[in-house]
């Protein structure tokens, strides 16, 4: 008892891969692209999302023009997307909420991004990218019994003892930069112990409580030619996402207790090794 990963064998609730262009995506190129048919086969629920932006300034609120995007998704019975490919504004986002294993999920996500960039580059060879980001959300569900968060998390370089010791429901949001070859990589780590009943203050951990761990890694750089990132080099999109994955594993291994880390497959227990 205590806290268990939501999917039994792992705790990954969502993984989202984002690539940002230096200019708005021309949706018409993708609409006319041959690869659209393949996306429609794999992600049959197609929608046109819209972005509404309001800018607050000295003159009051200024409504910006509505930006239309394009979205392909594979939906669950309840309508939530298991896989989603979204083009909106400047961002290409692939979101997976049916995570099975890194190799399969990242390969599929990378394929969508490569296919999209290839189509966009063909129409505009000067296309540039300015951000590559990955967001991973892990969730552990409270299964009753031991409500001490220390059965799941360990205080250390990523978790301060303070908030976690004050009340059953708590959160700790933090952020920092790391530098990879001088390029800043924004890291955000948000840990929330939440109950679904609402945000009322409670004295004991509710039965429906869960621990949500969100880790965002976002590399921001001076816009560079998009085609450079599709080559088989250490600076490719693929290599960047692989590095994000390794850094996420490293962070989780420092954040989770030994038992929890074994439960989600970060380590093998000595019994399994023998």
């Amino acid at each position, binding site marked *: 008892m205590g806290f268990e990963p939501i*999917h*039994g*064998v*792992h705790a990954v609730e969502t993984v989202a891969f984002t690539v940002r262009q230096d200019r708005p995506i021309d949706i018409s190129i993708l609409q006319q*692209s*041959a*690869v*659209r*048919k*393949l996306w429609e*086969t*794999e*992600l*049959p*629920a*197609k*929608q046109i999302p819209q972005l509404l932006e309001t800018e607050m300034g000295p003159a009051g609120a200024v409504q910006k023009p509505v930006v239309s995007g394009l979205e392909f998704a*594979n*939906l*669950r*019975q309840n*309508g939530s997307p*298991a896989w989603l490919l979204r083009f909106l504004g400047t961002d290409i986002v692939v979101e997976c909420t*049916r*995570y*099975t*294993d890194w190799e*399969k999920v990242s*390969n599929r996500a990378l*394929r969508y991004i*490569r*296919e999209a960039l*290839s*189509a966009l*580059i*063909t129409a505009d*060879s000067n296309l540039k990218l300015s951000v590559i980001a990955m967001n991973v959300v892990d969730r552990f569900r409270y299964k009753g019994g031991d409500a001490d968060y220390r059965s799941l998390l360990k205080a250390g370089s990523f978790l301060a003892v303070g908030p976690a010791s004050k009340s059953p429901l708590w959160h700790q949001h933090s952020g920092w930069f790391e530098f990879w070859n001088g390029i800043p990589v924004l890291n955000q780590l948000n840990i929330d112990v939440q109950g679904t009943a609402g945000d009322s203050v409670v004295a004991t951990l509710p039965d429906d409580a869960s621990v949500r761990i969100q880790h965002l890694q976002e590399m921001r750089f001076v816009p560079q*030619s998009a*085609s*450079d*990132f*599709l*080559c088989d*080099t250490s600076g490719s999109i693929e290599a960047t996402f692989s590095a994000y994955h390794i850094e996420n594993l490293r962070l989780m291994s420092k954040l989770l207790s030994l038992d929890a880390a074994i439960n989600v497959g970060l380590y093998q227990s000595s019994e399994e090794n023998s």
Partner: protein
Amino acid sequence: MNALTAREPIAWRGFPLPMSKGPNALLSLLEAPTQDRTLGPQRQVESHPTARRPGYRLIGTRLVGAGRRAKLRPHYADQFSVSDTGLVPAVNVSETLIQNSAKTLSSTVPLAVDRLIIFLERVPPEWAGPGTAPPSVEALADVLAVSYFISPQSTMPEIEVDPDSGGVSLIWTRKDKRRSFALIFDGDHRVVGTMACLDGGNYKPWALAVDQEVQIAMRLEDLDVMALLTAQSFAQVINPSASSDSPGVIALPTGK
């Protein structure tokens, strides 16, 4: 599709279309009562007079004679027939769904699975002779739940229904018939996955609750299973955009 623009009622794959009522009439066909659609234990059903009645079509005769399960076999890509003694109207379900989708919603599940579920729901009582059960409500609910985890690129499986319990099996068989993968639903909120291989292999059968989405998806992502579900080679499974049938990826400009 052309049938929808015709002025006169026409027989659409054996089913008369009430065109005056517009495309929505197609939906009513799906909801039509299923009485008088059972022929009883006829062996040579194609010669039975009922088989020639408008709105009914039966393809093939008895495929599974002594077995406990009788087969429901998709005859064409978009048409079904009962290959045992039962009889269901041969409605072009996929086109019906497309018409509906164009007006109201985009498909959220694979079209093949849409067709499969609708067809199974339409199988009447005593479809394979007196005392035989149609697919049970519980088994159908389980098939529907798992259908959302099956690749949208999957081909239509062969369907078997247990005439005693109403359990449903979905079976994908390789063209050379040497390998097949089955998902078995007995209506107990579980799904069993198993693979039969004539050419060796050590696939380990599994049983999971139908709401164990990730665990089921993991097993359906197995390359052997994916190859059977999608009737593709391993290379096509690994890289769908490299498939000769797919639209293909535009060549990349060479970078640094």
